């Protein structure tokens, strides 16, 4: 009864759950410009899905799989949304749905075409089993912004058995599970993007996930194991007070989805400031020709190094005034870390950072 009354009251006064509080970047996530200052290696439209395979480092650009400094590997029928490597075999998630296997003994096999309509992350659990995250039951992988703004909570986690060629759902009701990784104990780390939190899911009891980090100031994306211990955690963008506010303003949110072109929504992006029709916020006003790095922004570049418990330890940023935004994938190359910023489609090298050991390794 009290909750029934409290909700409208909170909505009216802007208190409790209706208060718009965005956590600040602090502690291990204290902003710097390391990502922005990093050496830029190459530019490719929609650069994504960096992965270290036996053949070398691969990345995707739209529907095309490339080898770093090695040219085109293969062109797929639709945009590549996620990628994982195990020996010779590559698991390739496609925008049109399903996971396609390339190379190795299972070359050409496709799995989960109907059930996995929106594969956004995939990993090899063992050589015969894949774990895949389906971002949403309603939207395609490329429509992630639409899913966020329509309060999508229909993401799910799947186990794909390659031998039997079938897919079993581990859990659903996730708000865009954008990244998955194996824990040292064989459980799964899942980043639940729209709820800004990281979960630990036991594969044999997936119904009861454990929240291991919540209230993140950014939208967590893919998780990659680091060779010197711990993980690399990428972030799609930072949270923005106005976006959080719009998500609570259902009338405006719905009209915006219906009437405003998606590029010009008040919503996070992988890049921003490409057009004057994009929304601008108070602190984004240029002063004496300069955009302040602390301005409220819809896109941001952020990679965090986490310990084995997936708690951030170090971070590399490109702030509001930068352009290395929308980081979706990283790959280690010796002591260096290659970071793929999907927003501008730029690959940068963070020299030496992969050599830093992290406690608990």
């Amino acid at each position, binding site marked *: 009864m009290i909750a029934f009354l409290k909700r409208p009251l909170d909505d009216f006064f802007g208190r409790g759950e209706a208060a718009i509080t965005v956590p600040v970047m602090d502690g291990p996530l204290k902003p710097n410009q390391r990502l922005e200052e990093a050496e830029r290696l190459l530019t490719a439209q929609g650069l994504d899905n960096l992965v270290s395979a036996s053949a070398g480092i691969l990345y995707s650009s739209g529907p095309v799989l490339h080898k770093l400094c090695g040219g085109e590997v293969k062109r797929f029928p639709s945009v590549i949304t996620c990628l994982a490597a195990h020996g010779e075999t590559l698991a390739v998630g496609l925008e049109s749905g399903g996971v396609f296997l390339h190379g190795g003994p299972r070359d050409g096999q496709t799995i989960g075409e109907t059930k996995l309509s929106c594969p956004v992350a995939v990993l090899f659990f063992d050589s015969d089993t894949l774990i895949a995250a389906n971002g949403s039951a309603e939207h395609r992988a490329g429509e992630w912004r639409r899913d966020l703004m329509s309060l999508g909570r229909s993401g799910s986690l799947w186990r794909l058995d390659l031998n039997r060629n079938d897919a079993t759902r581990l859990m659903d009701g996730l708000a865009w599970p954008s990244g998955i990784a194996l824990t040292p104990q064989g459980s799964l780390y899942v980043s639940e993007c729209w*709820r800004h939190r990281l979960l630990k899911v036991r594969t044999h009891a997936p119904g009861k996930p454990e929240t291991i980090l919540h*209230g993140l100031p950014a939208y967590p994306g893919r998780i990659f194991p680091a060779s010197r211990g711990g993980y690399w955690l990428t972030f799609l963008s930072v949270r923005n*007070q106005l976006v959080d*506010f719009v998500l609570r303003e259902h009338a405006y949110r719905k009209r915006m989805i219906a009437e405003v072109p998606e590029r010009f929504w008040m919503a996070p992006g992988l890049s921003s400031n490409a057009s*004057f*029709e994009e929304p601008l*916020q108070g602190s984004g006003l*240029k002063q004496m020709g300069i955009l302040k790095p602390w*301005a409220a922004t819809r896109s941001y570049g952020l990679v965090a190094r986490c310990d084995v418990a997936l708690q951030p330890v170090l971070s590399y940023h490109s702030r509001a005034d930068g352009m290395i935004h929308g980081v979706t994938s990283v790959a280690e190359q010796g002591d260096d870390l290659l970071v793929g910023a999907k927003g501008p489609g730029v690959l940068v090298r963070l020299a030496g950072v992969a050599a830093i050991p992290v406690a608990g390794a």
Partner: protein
Amino acid sequence: MALRCAEPEPAFDPVPPRGHTKALPKARTSASARWKKTLTKFRYKYIPDHVLGELLAKRWMDNAIPFAALVIVIIVFGSVLPHFFSIDNISEMSRQFAELGLVVLALAIVMLSGGIDLSVGSVFALGVLLSTIGMNAMGWSVGLTFIAVLVLGVVCGTINGVLVGYLRLRAFLTTLVTLITFRSIYELVYPKFSTQIAGNLPDSAVWNFIGEGDLFGVPSSFIFTAIVAIAFHLVLSRMRPGWRLMAVGGARRSAYNAGINVRRTICVTYICSSVLCCIAGFLNAARLSTAGSDVGIGLEIVALTAVVLGGNSLGGGRGSVAKAVIGAVIVLILTNGLIAMSVPGPINSLVLGVVLIGAVFVDVRWLKNRDKILNKVYVSPTYYELPPAKSTKPGSGSPYALNDKLRNVGAIGLGVIEGAEDMILDRDDNLYCGNRHGDIMRFFPPDYVRHEIFAHVGGQPLGFAIDRDTNINVCIGGMGLYMVTPAREIIKLSDETNRSLLSVTDDSRLRLADDLDIAPDGRVFFSEATTRFEMHEWPVDALESRGNGRIICYDPRTGKSHTEVPNLIFPNGICMCADGQSFLFAETWGCRVSRYYYGGPNKGKTEVLISDAPGYPDNINRASDGNYWLAFVGMRSPALDLALTMPGFRRRMARRCAPDAWLYPNLNTGLVIKFNEKGEVLESLWDLGGKNHPMITSVREHKGVLYLGGIYNNRVGTYKIPGADPNWCALDTYWGKA
């Protein structure tokens, strides 16, 4: 883990509203949505939300609650008690008020200085006692008795004042002790004179006049108290001792640092207090001609209730005589009313106590929250639907189609200029522009590298115009309309206009004079962009998109200004037409350009020339081919255009989000267009990406070159106009060839 909040963050999981579907059913939307839209339009047209914020900003709002309480008390008791409004009752009450009012005033003065005087009741009793002793027992004259009573007041007050003011004892404890001490003196002295007081009645016409007489039907004692109250009101609100007292009460240390003798000021308040109480006692004695053993008992609580109920702050520094008077009247009506309703005495006291607690509660909450409420409700958006914008797509055939003509503009004063909203060139090609440090800068031809500060005007110069006598007329944000002569003399032309009839706040002072132009007869027409926001927060006005601005006419022949066109949506650029009876003006958030006739057969008429601009128009100036240049300070964005039709959304945004996060008009990309008097857009010049000129607030042609200014830019841009007359000077079109 530093990332974990100490308090769990409110779970961010916005619940979809009931009936949340992916898309709205189309058929239902059209009819009900249209109805809803009309309703919203109506609501925002006829309910002026912004008035609430303006009311809260008023100082007299502090009196509103006590005054409302007074009205309620009068209505309640007036309807319950049969003889409430009878002459007798009012006369009797006003005599009682004369005494209680003085005591309340006494306590209020002490509380304004940050102290408290609990001894008012005892001092009052001593005043009554001495008056009756003097008049009844000793047979003194009225004058002598009055002087004796005044001396008694000074003595009592000095005891309090020295102890609290100079020896700096705690006011509460000290006056509690003097309360008991003075009372004890009363108890000791009273029995010795009680029979004489009761036995002898003084036979003095003056004494009777003070006690029972009236002037034109108004009780004499009431007139006396009224005069005292007005005198104290004048002292407190208009005179130096009163200001010092308020300063001491508001911030003791600051008052001390400002050189105020804090100790003396405090001591004097206690003396004032005791003297007023003694006079009240004198009036009481004159009215009743006797002294009872219980006189003055509990009076301090009654007075305290009245002071706080009137809205005087317990902490000092805030309050007034008017508040004390209101409080005294309320308490008087309350106690008398309860007595008339035969409510027993203890319950009467109980009611008073409850009222005191309630008043203290309201006082504390109000003081604490008033500014918070004001902050939250000041920005009050309204409904505004912009017409669909013309396309800017390259190849769309639209005159606004994107191009890159401004890519290679030159720069003047790069890094030297900070915020030149407008610039102007004289006949000798000197360039004048403003900056945010409050200077008018002058750059010298031919290369515009050498520069000087032409004049320091103290506020940020915005629009410029040069008059017939080569004086520079300039609008200065936050200051008004000024003139700088060639000899660098700075003359204020206008900083106020007539106050509008129905405005809550005084809108006669100019807040944001923006751009100007000069008519052939010398009258200056200038825009005031908004009357609700200051210079540094002008983009916030876009959130409201109400007609907050106006165009004002300054007439040099009379030296007076008046509002020519009210209620414009951020009026900005102004440019005289060649016909000598009209000018063009741009409304920035209204995205339109209009023509206003200030003379001729169409006098007073406004016609809209451009209404579908894709951006926010700023300054307008003449072009060499008889057309006009128009600068766009920023471009429209669909997300904001949509929000403009949802005022509730913007209002909640202003209350719940930080100003840094507010949805702003996109002012990071500017544009220049050329248009004619028919409103046809002839040409557009873009700087794609906004590298050089993120915003363009002004554009001015001079001898074949276009100069570009921007209020947040660090330069003035130059663009060579292909095919333009290299000898054309705008001043010649205004004032003829030199």
